[in-house]
């Protein structure tokens, strides 16, 4: 039992360190909270593209991709090692995750050699950015309930409908899209999967403002949008199978922290006086801090166990749901608790007036999304119950009926 690299990992890490030391600037120590990277900023995107090209040249852009896709043919643990090292550097991150992690693997799995050759390399070098067009206003947790319509028209398809929760739709070049091509077929049998040029006529993109005020997502409206049949992946009616390839590759990218956490509330408790001494000396505060410390340590070592599995070449299971489930609520609870410590002044959002530059107030407003996006708490518990514990799935009445005979609500 140790935390050290295997000789192979150590050798790979040395190479990574070498590359990064030459190619990038170290991140200043204690640079504090890292909010979502600046994907919305065109300058950020330029820098991200330049960095991606450098990584690709050095062979670190598609570490786990097979060589015939243009990747390195490496292992998941190599990816972890790379990410660990890269995190120490001030480089732009996150812009290509969806494309490289989900879209292109689906293209390469289901597309022709020609499609692969055309798209994989450009995506790998950051020359084209990809997005995902899956969720709909009435199809979230129940993705297969989607109703964006695809109708054949000669060698094209005509798309009508609305997708939602698409990150970066307005700056992306290409997207992957699931549609319903047969409303009389059973729910999972009438879907067809395409990839689509995001500049196609008839596509309208509307940013979605979140309760925090930020707009990281878009609604994408399709009005008589044409897609050539050559951009179909998988057979007509087999879109669900193709979509599963995309979803299988979904992972909760670790990236920058998305809110004020245990470390910050600890720091706050050190500094804030409750009238009878620092909050850190209060028994009730200590009780909570201990809970959160223990949970976050637990998550850290759960991750180490996952990495050990990767290091061995095993595929980690749905255990990864655990981190998201625990963290999201913990962040919300920490934010609410930290604001309580600030008493009436806890309502202040102005970074110049609120402790830790208002990070707890910000987290109060962003954490509800963390409990929902990428699989809600409830879906995570279902996954754990069914895939880890082997408990039976829900009773499903919607799998056997024709889609257009299923009951629907007003929402």
């Amino acid at each position, binding site marked *: 039992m140790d935390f050290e690299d295997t000789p192979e990992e150590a050798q790979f890490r040395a190479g990574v360190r070498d590359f990064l030391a030459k190619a990038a600037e170290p991140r200043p120590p204690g640079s504090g909270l890292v909010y979502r990277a600046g994907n919305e900023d065109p300058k950020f995107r330029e820098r991200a593209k330049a960095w991606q090209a450098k990584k690709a040249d050095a062979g670190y852009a598609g570490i786990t991709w097979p060589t015939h896709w243009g990747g390195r043919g490496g292992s998941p643990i190599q990816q972890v090692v790379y990410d660990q090292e890269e995190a120490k550097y001030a480089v732009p991150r996150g812009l290509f995750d969806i494309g490289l992690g989900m879209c292109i693997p689906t293209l390469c799995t289901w597309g022709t050699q020609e499609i692969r050759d055309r798209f994989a390399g450009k995506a790998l070098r950051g020359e084209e950015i990809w997005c995902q067009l899956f969720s709909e206003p009435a199809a979230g947790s129940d993705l297969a309930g989607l109703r964006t319509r695809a109708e054949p028209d000669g060698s094209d398809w005509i798309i009508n409908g609305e997708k939602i929760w698409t990150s970066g739709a307005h700056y992306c070049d290409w997207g992957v899209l699931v549609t319903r091509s047969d409303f009389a077929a059973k729910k999972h049998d009438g879907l067809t999967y395409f990839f689509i040029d995001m500049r196609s006529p008839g596509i309208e993109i509307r940013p979605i*403002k979140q309760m925090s005020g930020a707009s990281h997502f878009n609604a994408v409206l399709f009005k008589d949008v044409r897609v050539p049949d050559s951009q179909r992946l998988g057979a007509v009616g087999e879109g669900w199978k193709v979509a599963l390839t995309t979803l299988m590759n979904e992972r909760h990218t670790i990236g920058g922290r998305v809110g004020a956490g245990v470390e910050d509330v600890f720091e706050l408790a050190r500094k804030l006086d409750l009238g009878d001494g620092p909050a850190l000396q209060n028994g009730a505060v200590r009780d909570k801090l201990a809970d959160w410390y223990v949970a976050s340590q637990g998550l850290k070592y759960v991750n180490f166990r996952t990495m050990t599995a990767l290091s061995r070449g095993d595929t980690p299971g749905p255990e990864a749901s655990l981190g998201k489930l625990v963290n999201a609520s913990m962040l919300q609870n920490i934010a609410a608790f930290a*604001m309580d410590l*600030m008493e009436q002044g806890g309502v202040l*959002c102005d970074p110049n*007036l609120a402790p830790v530059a208002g990070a707890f107030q910000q987290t109060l407003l962003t954490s509800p999304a963390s409990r929902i996006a990428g699989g*809600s708490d409830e879906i995570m518990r279902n996954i754990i119950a069914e895939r880890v514990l082997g408990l039976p799935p829900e009773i499903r009445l919607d799998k056997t009926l024709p889609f257009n005979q299923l009951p629907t*609500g007003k929402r």
Partner: protein
Amino acid sequence: MNFDFSDDLKALREQARKFLRQRCPTATVRRVLEGPEPYDLRLWQEIAAMGWTGAAIPEAWGGAGLGHLGLCVLAEELGSALAPTPFASSIYLAAEAIMLAGSDSQKQAWLPKLAGGTIIGTFALAEGPGKADPGKLFTTWRGGALTGEKLPVPDGDVADLAVVAARGERGLQLLLVDLNGPGVTRHAVDTIDPSRSHARLVFAGAAAEPIGELGRGEALLRRLEERAAVLMAFEQVGGAQRALEMARDYALQRYAFGRPIGSFQAIKHKLADVWVATELARANAYYGAWALSRDAPELPLAAAAARISANEAYFLAAKENIQVHGGMGFTWEFDCHLHYRRAKLLALALGSTRLWKERLLLELEAANAPL
């Protein structure tokens, strides 16, 4: 046993509910949340015209003389509607302070205007993030002049009159300050709930007259907070109930996997827990109302229980309402965040749950045979 509001007050509540449903839909709340207006002036004027602002103020001072039970039922509806007005600051705090401890001339000077809604009052205690320890306030009152800074002050940007807690020569003192007078500057500040405006108030030798006996300020402050806590608990219970209803309605209308999401136990049991918390909060608030209406010796305990229970129920209801709404729940467009913001604002407004738990325990210890 008649642990309920009278039929008259229930009728008043029903009337208030109807009025607010019509005049204060969430679009009204959003106008204040998103726009430059600090509060909804027309709504405020209509509320005042109906006598709500004067509900608990005796007729002798221009009020309706309905007593505090009347104010409780109105508070519940104002909370449910998220009414973007300075009602709480002006009525639960400023008017209440003057009724509790004002001299006859102070009452004469201010209560009729507060009752009529022609001026707005507020209460200023906090001095930035952290506990506003009565023994350690920086704002000082000397020779009739007030110096210091208060932050955040609810409705401080629009109030005409403030009851200010400051350190005087004989300890903590509550003071009446005309905010339109010299020596007062104010700036609006950003908070988590922009549908209720807040300000930083700076006093540079502003004229301030004492309210209540010198040297008895801490006791007066405690009494004032207890009374406001009960009234605010009704706002919170109203808000919790509304958030619960939103979640319930959405769970009935939203379908996933071919069935309403409200048929899934994960949702059903979540909402059952929210309902339980809300009913406990309501029951504790009712007891607070009884104690408030009689100025009973049980008020300190009743108020603390009402506030703790209401803080918990409203925040729980508001956050789980978002969760039930799923992806749409955390959009700006959906109304869920209005309750989430307000729930946290109210939970901090009179001091956190932590502080009120401490008050509760001190009371129980003093009683020595509490339960």
